[in-house]
């Protein structure tokens, strides 16, 4: 279990060092996102340019990644984000992370900048920096296929043309559609002249108690497979969520001018374009669509943000835009949000043809497709859009009022957060900006959830009314913590307690799985502490970059424009109530009223590590 190595790669000096991760560090963070965030805090000097050689790019697998543990395919890519200037981090599935562990590595830390385009070739206990001259300029599928032709069956994480061209929302891609999508980490690869990491390994992950793992996983598998949500996710995948949000009137539509859109994008319509459902490594849910248009997906995010948010109704067109983003190496969440923002700004006359070169408007598939391509190549208006939310400076202060982003990160969840107050608090406080996968307490949507179940999960006093602000800091606090731990372990959130189901992998299951794999005895409380530690160290990183209470806010529209349609009609976020909610959240986190991690805690954490 603990043979996994840490590869440190200095691209400026063309030097590779191989080390071990101290066991004490693993006990504090386990792995994955948590350990990545620790290294970012330790290694990155505040104020550096994310595109400078000083930025540190980390590929970190989870503690249980690549094992028999269900859905243990995940890894995190982390660096200072060029899109936001704060902590950048993105979690990803597929086959890359498991293969990296089979090659003997838990984590790769990359800094500096290569003189010429390069890629890393990682094989059993060995890392080589190789020339990528032949691969530079390729889109994401081409480079992966040619690397397989040249090296055999490698698993690859790469950036596309968008990453090479420093598009601030370029993703890191592996396989046909798995992406560490958020925060522009593909552009960090591009800035380092790093086209790809190809891994191929033959070593196993030694398990401390093999029989115990076989037994525990058998029980866990049965438990998960018997849940209704598992079979639904396994047959239609995340597009299922579209209808749920849409019925409520909480699908971001045309840059949140509207909050509901066409039923033509419901899961049953998407399903007609799906050939087969497939899995990531070790996954028993299999929510990935192999679509009939030559790619994989779409996820709910794509359906919402490349569909409703762009005013597009035809599922085939949405799937094609999804495939295009994947090919070019663009983050779908940012792409859909930034395009919609530009369309509304044009309609409102805040920007004109001086910038855009042509007429912009919603519901125009060809226009959206062309702009995505131009963004990836940084051509014309695409060169401007590639700057993401930084365009506020270019487009003028007024443009900010229409931007659906927090801390410079466009919102990923297609869910309009004006109705469900816990979702709003979640995206306002998430450590990477407006992102739902840090804390989305999805259970808030399940209005019929018995109160005692809610009490058991979140603690007493959380009302079953999603529009109430009362005690919602508790749901976000709980979810933030447990999602951080599941990210550390390398397990997909789909089987995490409290994400889509009030059941699934909770701290007790985690405790058992950790014991099988490593022999470590940990308590539920220890695991919750690990989660809190991750949230605090990420906040420390952001505090150091100047983040405070003023930044934990929401898009103006969420405060000031009541939702126009369906069940959620009339709802918006009340500034005063939100402010009080934020104060309560800081209190439960133990942060200062200004949203700073307290000095004692900073000293404590710095001493621990």
């Amino acid at each position, binding site marked *: 279990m603990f043979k996994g190595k840490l590869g440190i790669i200095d691209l400026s000096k063309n030097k590779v060092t191989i080390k071990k991760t101290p066991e004490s560090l693993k006990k504090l963070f386990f792995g994955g996102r948590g350990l990545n965030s620790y290294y970012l805090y330790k290694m990155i000097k505040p104020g550096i340019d994310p595109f400078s050689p000083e930025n540190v790019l980390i590929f970190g697998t989870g503690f249980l990644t690549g094992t*028999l543990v269900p859905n243990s395919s995940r890894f995190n890519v982390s660096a200072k984000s060029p899109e936001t200037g704060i902590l950048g981090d993105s979690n990803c599935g597929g086959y890359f992370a498991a293969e990296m562990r089979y090659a003997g590595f838990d984590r790769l830390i990359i800094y500096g900048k290569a003189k010429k385009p390069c890629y890393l070739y990682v094989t059993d206990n060995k890392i080589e920096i190789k020339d990528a001259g032949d691969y530079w300029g390729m889109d994401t599928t081409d480079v992966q296929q040619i690397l397989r032709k040249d090296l055999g069956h490698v698993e690859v994480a790469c950036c596309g043309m968008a990453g090479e061209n420093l598009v601030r929302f370029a993703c890191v891609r592996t396989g046909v559609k798995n992406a560490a999508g958020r925060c522009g980490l593909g552009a960090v690869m591009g800035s380092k002249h790093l086209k790809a990491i190809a891994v191929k390994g033959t070593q196993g*992950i030694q398990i401390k108690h093999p029989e115990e793992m*076989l037994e525990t996983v058998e029980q866990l598998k049965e438990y998960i497979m018997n849940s209704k949500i598992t079979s639904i996710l396994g047959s239609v995948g995340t597009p299922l969520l579209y209808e749920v949000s849409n019925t409520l009137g909480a699908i971001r539509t045309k840059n949140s001018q509207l909050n509901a859109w066409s039923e033509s994008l419901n899961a049953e319509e998407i399903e007609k374009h799906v050939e087969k459902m497939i*899995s990531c490594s070790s996954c028993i849910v299999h929510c990935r669509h192999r679509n009939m248009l030559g790619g994989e997906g779409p996820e709910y995010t794509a359906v919402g943000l490349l569909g409703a948010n762009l005013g597009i109704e035809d599922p085939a067109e949405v799937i094609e835009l999804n495939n295009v983003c994947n090919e070019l190496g663009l983050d779908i969440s940012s792409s859909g949000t930034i395009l919609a923002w530009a369309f509304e700004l044009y309609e409102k006359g805040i920007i004109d043809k001086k910038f855009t070169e042509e007429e912009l408007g919603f519901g125009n598939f060809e226009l959206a497709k062309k702009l995505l391509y131009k963004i990836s190549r940084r051509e014309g208006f695409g060169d401007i859009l590639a700057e993401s939310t930084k365009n506020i400076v270019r487009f003028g202060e007024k443009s900010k009022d229409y931007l659906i982003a927090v801390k410079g990160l466009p919102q990923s969840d297609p869910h309009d957060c004006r109705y469900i107050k816990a979702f709003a608090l979640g995206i306002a406080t998430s450590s990477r900006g407006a992102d739902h996968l840090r804390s989305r307490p999805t259970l808030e949507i399940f209005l019929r959830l018995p109160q005692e179940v809610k009490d058991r999960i979140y603690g007493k006093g959380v009302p079953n009314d999603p529009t109430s602000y009362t005690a919602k800091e508790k749901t976000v606090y709980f979810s933030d913590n447990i999602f951080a731990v599941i990210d550390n372990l390398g397990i997909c959130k789909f089987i995490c307690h409290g994400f889509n189901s009030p059941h699934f992998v909770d701290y007790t299951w985690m405790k058992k799985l950790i014991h099988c794999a490593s022999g470590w005895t940990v308590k539920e409380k220890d695991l919750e502490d690990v989660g809190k530690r991750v949230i605090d160290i990420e906040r420390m990183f952001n505090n150091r970059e100047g983040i405070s209470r003023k930044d934990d806010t929401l898009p103006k529209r969420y405060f000031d424009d009541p939702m126009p349609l369906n069940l959620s009609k009339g709802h918006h976020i009340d500034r005063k109530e939100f402010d009080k909610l934020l104060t309560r959240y800081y209190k439960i986190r133990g942060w200062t009223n200004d949203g700073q991690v307290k000095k004692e805690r900073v000293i404590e954490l710095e001493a621990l590590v």
Partner: protein
Amino acid sequence: MKYLYVYPEKCTGCRECSIACSLNKFGECNPKKAAITIVRDEFNRYEFPILCFQCEDPVCLKFCHQNAYQIKDGIVIRDKDKCIGCRLCATLCPYNAVTTIDDEIIKCDLCDGDPKCVKYCSTGAIQYLDETEELEKRRKNMAENFLEINKK
């Protein structure tokens, strides 16, 4: 007699079968060190399990100079002590179902009637079934498909 049957159309490529096999046999998680292999290529869009069919006249047994293979209750078993590790069985197997890695030769033994690959498969892509019953089922499906096509 019960054997392993494969339904590639149900395989999602996750490799829980191979990982369970390696964990059971070697105490480690390693899909490349298993008696069952999933060949998968997301770009060419397929997932395909490869495993031992327990042939009645097995090539692995026939060409083994050391007589390391024997058939016991319909299962082709390799005797580790007799094996000299020449890997001829793996080379000759028409289905490439014998794995060689790290000085190990791995040949499916159906886990004493409780195949782990089947147990950890979540979609029924690998099933452990009675040959007569399975054949009856497959024939019936085929007949129905044929009649369906004939109608058109």
